[in-house]
């Protein structure tokens, strides 16, 4: 665990010394403030649109951070050869994967904290209420979702050599699951034969990232989610991440690394 934490520290340091996070945060803030200056129907209290836009920007930015950060970890280590002095130390490949995952996930968590704080300030300035519990729940589920995404992209990074191809494929998969994942079961019911079965299998195999998107609850102030549902979603996310990390280790553990 010591090695994984040390590695995670380096990943976090890298993210905050690069400019990606700052650029995305400034873009999100600027776009939200521009939208915030627009008065819909000349009514100051209508902030749903503002919340919707701000949360959408936060989701897009966080997914960009998670995918691009995780995609470059192992391929960049191999390309820049920093992996050799590292693995020449008493570090196992399992610890390397765990450290990279932990670093990316914690870095995403810190970025989310800043984003949601900004969201809270913006909405509180217009609504004059701060439903802290609902925001924390939304952020927690969002973070668990990013854990699955990070694990998925890390798996891709040991399969695909180039970080760019891994990022592209990961964006397509994550986007596909977010937009269509929940509808696959419904579509499968309308199909007969093999295609319906295949769609059912896909539905039950893919990680359902769309479950973690609770933007509507926050936007419309529909109240808190039952804690049991949050706990279930957390467990599901952690198990899925662990499964993907296990698969990453299986592929990477005996991979030849030549200097």
């Amino acid at each position, binding site marked *: 665990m*010591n090695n994984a934490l040390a590695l995670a520290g*380096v990943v976090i340091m890298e993210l905050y010394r690069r400019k990606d996070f700052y650029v995305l945060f400034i873009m999100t803030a600027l776009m939200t403030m521009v939208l915030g200056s627009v008065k819909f129907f000349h009514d100051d209290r209508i902030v749903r649109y503002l919340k919707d836009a701000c949360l959408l920007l936060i989701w897009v930015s966080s997914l960009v951070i998670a995918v691009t950060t995780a995609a470059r970890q192992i391929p960049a280590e191999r390309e820049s050869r920093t992996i050799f002095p590292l693995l020449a130390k*008493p570090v196992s490949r399992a610890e390397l994967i765990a450290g990279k995952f932990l670093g990316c996930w914690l870095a995403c968590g810190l970025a989310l904290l800043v984003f949601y704080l900004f969201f809270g300030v913006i909405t509180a300035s217009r609504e004059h209420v701060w439903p802290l519990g609902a925001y924390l729940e939304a952020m927690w589920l969002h973070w668990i979702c990013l854990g699955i995404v990070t694990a998925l992209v890390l798996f891709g990074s040991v399969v695909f050599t180039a970080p760019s191809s891994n990022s592209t494929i990961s964006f397509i998969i994550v986007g596909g699951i977010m937009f269509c994942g929940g509808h696959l079961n419904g579509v499968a019911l309308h199909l007969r034969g093999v295609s319906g079965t295949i769609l059912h299998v896909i539905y039950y195999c893919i990680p359902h990232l769309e479950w973690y998107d609770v933007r509507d609850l926050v936007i419309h102030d529909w109240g808190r989610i039952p804690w049991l549902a949050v706990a279930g979603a957390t467990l599901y996310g952690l198990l899925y991440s662990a499964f993907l990390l296990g698969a990453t280790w299986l592929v990477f553990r005996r991979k030849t690394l*030549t200097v």
Partner: protein
Amino acid sequence: MSHVVEINDLRVEFPGREWRERPKVAVEGLTLQVRSGEVFGFLGPNGAGKTTTMNVLLGFVMATSGSASIFGVDVRQPIARQRIGYLPEMTYYYKFLSTEELLRFYARIFRIPSRDRERRIDGVLKLVDLEAARRRLIKTYSKGMQQRVGLAQALINDPDLLILDEPTSGLDPLGRMKVREIIERLKEQGKTVFFSSHELGEVETVCDRVAILHEGRLRVEGRVDELVKQYQCDLEHVFLRVVGYQPRS
């Protein structure tokens, strides 16, 4: 005398790049022992299998058959690397870190207690003359300075075995002298050094024993002075004869 590195009947083959291409044998039937406290030169022409053997010792490449151990521990176990320092031929480190941060990271990996960590970092930075630039990001360093960062990280855990892959390649004469001084100092301290090099004059000066590899197989192994006596020529000519080079008369 105990063996620090022990390689038994090692075979390493890499799968062919093309479909149906036969696997390429990089190392074949290599058996070798490095004794405690000696400076061991690992020689051979390019493609002889030196780096592959080092990669097996460091766990980067899995052996197809045979075994290798360091301090009696199978090289596949990460703990086998607890007492070693490794300097790759080309040194690349996290460029977004300063040398001090990099060394602190590696010291943490070696589980050096925090009370000793800073003292150790100060010591190695002094040894490689990087004290003044310790807080600068590595990306701002010259090539020579980056090579010295490599040496510093290889020495951070006060290793009992130092594995150096062509440590003087690309260094200026001053840098080479520094590396040689460090190897000699380690030898005086009773440490074991296992290194590959093409600088045969240097090898002859600092090594106790050498092994010459050619086409993946061990051709010659022995004490430098004995080989020179046996072949009646200097180490460079011993090397050329072993690899089958016929000089034009």
